[in-house]
């Protein structure tokens, strides 16, 4: 039994797929590619794939991950080639490597995400000052809405990096099992409307120590 860790890029309009839709799309991609994925036992067998943290809808990404368990041994090169041929437009394979025995799963590893966010030019608005003010706060209360109910959370501990270079924000935010801060939420705390956002790109997903998984 071998486990491969796959890293892929998702760019263009396909980034408007929800996380759940993308999981379903991957099932079909793997079938088309004839990848021998292991199945769980039981009444409702499902493929043994573990995905990294959900990507917000509309956010493109340079590095998304999943771990996949194979029924039989396969060369990484064959695996990558077969898979690449079955991908829809906008998704491409970045990297595939075998996971060693004892390594933690992708879901357990990811702790933060890096983003680049481009917004419309702001005339006369001092974004740098807003960033300093925001980061100086001990608490940043934010109302998260969800079908399960709304609740107020503190975003501050989940914002690790927040910078502005005049055109683009660079952010490092909490992601993974211990919670999420979305770039959109940070922008909203800075008083930047969704309408003013030009593009959001997840550039990396990282472990707690800052290494790639």
């Amino acid at each position, binding site marked *: 039994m071998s486990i491969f860790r796959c890293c892929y890029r998702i760019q263009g309009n396909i980034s408007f797929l929800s996380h759940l839709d993308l999981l379903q799309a991957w099932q079909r991609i793997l079938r088309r590619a004839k990848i021998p994925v292991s199945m769980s036992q039981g009444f*409702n067998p499902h493929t043994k794939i573990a995905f990294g943290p959900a990507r917000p809808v509309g956010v493109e990404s340079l590095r998304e991950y999943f771990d996949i368990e194979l029924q039989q041994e396969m060369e990484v090169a064959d695996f990558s080639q077969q898979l690449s041929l079955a991908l829809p437009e906008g998704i491409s394979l970045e990297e595939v490597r075998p996971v060693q025995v004892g390594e933690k799963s992708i879901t357990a590893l990811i702790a933060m995400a890096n983003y680049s966010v481009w917004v419309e030019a702001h005339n006369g608005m001092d974004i740098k000052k807003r960033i300093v003010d925001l980061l100086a706060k001990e608490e940043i209360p934010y109302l998260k809405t969800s079908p399960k109910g709304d609740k107020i959370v503190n975003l501050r501990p989940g914002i690790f990096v927040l910078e502005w270079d005049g055109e683009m924000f660079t952010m490092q935010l909490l992601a993974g099992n211990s919670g999420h801060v979305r770039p959109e939420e940070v922008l909203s705390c800075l008083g930047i409307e969704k309408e003013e956002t030009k593009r959001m790109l997840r550039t990396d997903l990282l472990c707690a120590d800052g290494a790639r998984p």
Partner: protein
Amino acid sequence: MVVLRERITRELLPFVTRPGQYIGGEYNQIVKDWDSTQLKMAFLFPDTYEIGMSFVGMRILYHVVNAQPDFLLERSFAPLVDMEARMREKGIPLFTWESGRAVKDFDVVGFTLQYEMSYSNILNMLDLAGIPLLAKDRVSGPLVVAGGPGAFNPEPVADFFDLFMLGEGEELLPELLAAYEKSKQAGESKHDFLVKAAQIPGVYVPSLYQVTYGEDGVIKEILPLENGPAVVYKRVLPDMDLAMYPDKELVPLTQVVHDRLVLEVMRGCTRGCRFCQAGIIYRPVREKSVDKLIQQADALLESSGYEEMGLMSLSTADYSCVNELISELLDRYSEEGVGVSLPSLRVDAFSVDLAEKVQKVRKSGLTFAPEAGTQRMRNVINKGVTEEHVLTATKAAFSQGWSQIKLYFMIGLPTETKEDLDGIIDLAVKVLQNGKEIAREKGIRKPLKVSVSVSSFVPKSHTPFQWFGQNTLAELKEKQHYLKEQAKQYKNLSLNYHQSEVSFLEAAFSRGDRRLGQVLLKAWEMGCKFDGWTEHFKYQTWIDAFAACGYTPEFFAYREMDKDEVLPWQHLSCGVSQKWLWHEWQKALAEDLTADCRHNPCSGCGVCQKLGVDNDLKGAGR
């Protein structure tokens, strides 16, 4: 044009619910080069993406047109209400999913007429596309065409279309596009093209027919002008093994209603249920051979990665090689985890065995459609099903482990009495009691459920019941109420019904003539759209729209028509003669049965003789 695509991405997608439905980009999507392709057609489905993508007809035509080097076909669907609002606010017109181009930049815009209650969406989509709604106001711009079952009585939408295509489109649509391309190159006017197009078999140009009305509001005459054929006959493919079928399926990236590979096993049904329009207009029965189907299944599975395959037709259990086909499919694919599903079951034990065969693990519910509660009523509608069939089938289902049975019935059928309503409840109760007995014998603890679904009968054009005036709203509501009260007395029996107001308007449009175009336009102006969706349906607005135009839906829906009355669809034919339909109507009233011509002598409906085709069975059958 690239600019429009970028605007969609920037200004629309981030702000709407489930944006994934608007992005296209499905695996096997075909995007042809715009500039080097002669003729461009946009296919518009008048409902949402998740519904439209489940429609096999579109998938076939997508393949057929794009296979031609000179043509391209791109898709568009009705945007949901939030998306539409955003598009209107930003001034972004309706676009195609493939290239994000404005629909009005295409040469031909085609709709499918699947359901009367989607007609308001057609107007809304034309408007969103920036195309004038009325055909007479369109001097330039795309040719607006339609096909589908609704094309057999397209009169209520005649004002909005340049032409309709009757019957099967695999050959007809490319012929029409070629003719249009030629006409475009020759610089002909739209009118000149339409006069010529009317000579293509299967093409109906409504502007070439003059309809006059008597003082009683009934049609006096339908008069063809400029050489328009007196009767337009549908197109039909004689051999389904030779018909074009996609070898690559579009694989949706987001959830759609029927998210599986579809294998069409045959076309047509000759059971002859008298309420059923599909059973008339798709005649005769033409099956594909098992070899052909396996070949198509292989190619489609390989190129799609689907994990489920649906065997589609009007009645798949009637396919003469169904056992052989299912065994072969299971042999080939079950190891790869590919499931087979049957969209509809016949009411008999044979069908339950089929369902058992394809069921993988979970046995949740099975649905049967006895359609009526008493033998007398079932004879009237020519549903060749007896109480014994129903009980044997449901017993088999319970014994084989299903715990939920759904039964479909209709109310408001011709000659219906209180006894027929009681018969619905009686039959459901018998099914339930049988189930309980079986559960007791087998020691099954899982609670049983029988749910009865009751729909209000809508008389449809081109059926023996086309002359029958629908039950009034008050009658239907009273019947629904009566059934509900009866059903309440039984535990484990549930009963539900559809909004009868929808059925009422559906009947008006199903039997309506071209005067309803004004009503439709008015209703759309007053905000009607997505009428098939309970949450959007505005009954009172529709009634107001009728009143504003000086008509009533009652006139169209409730009137019992005379034998000699000129029907609004008199000049449109699927090959089945009006004479035979009338004969069937009389037999219905006499509670007389007509046998299925697949396994019995010809009943004389006329389609085979008229169109030069025949039932084409590939096996001996059951």
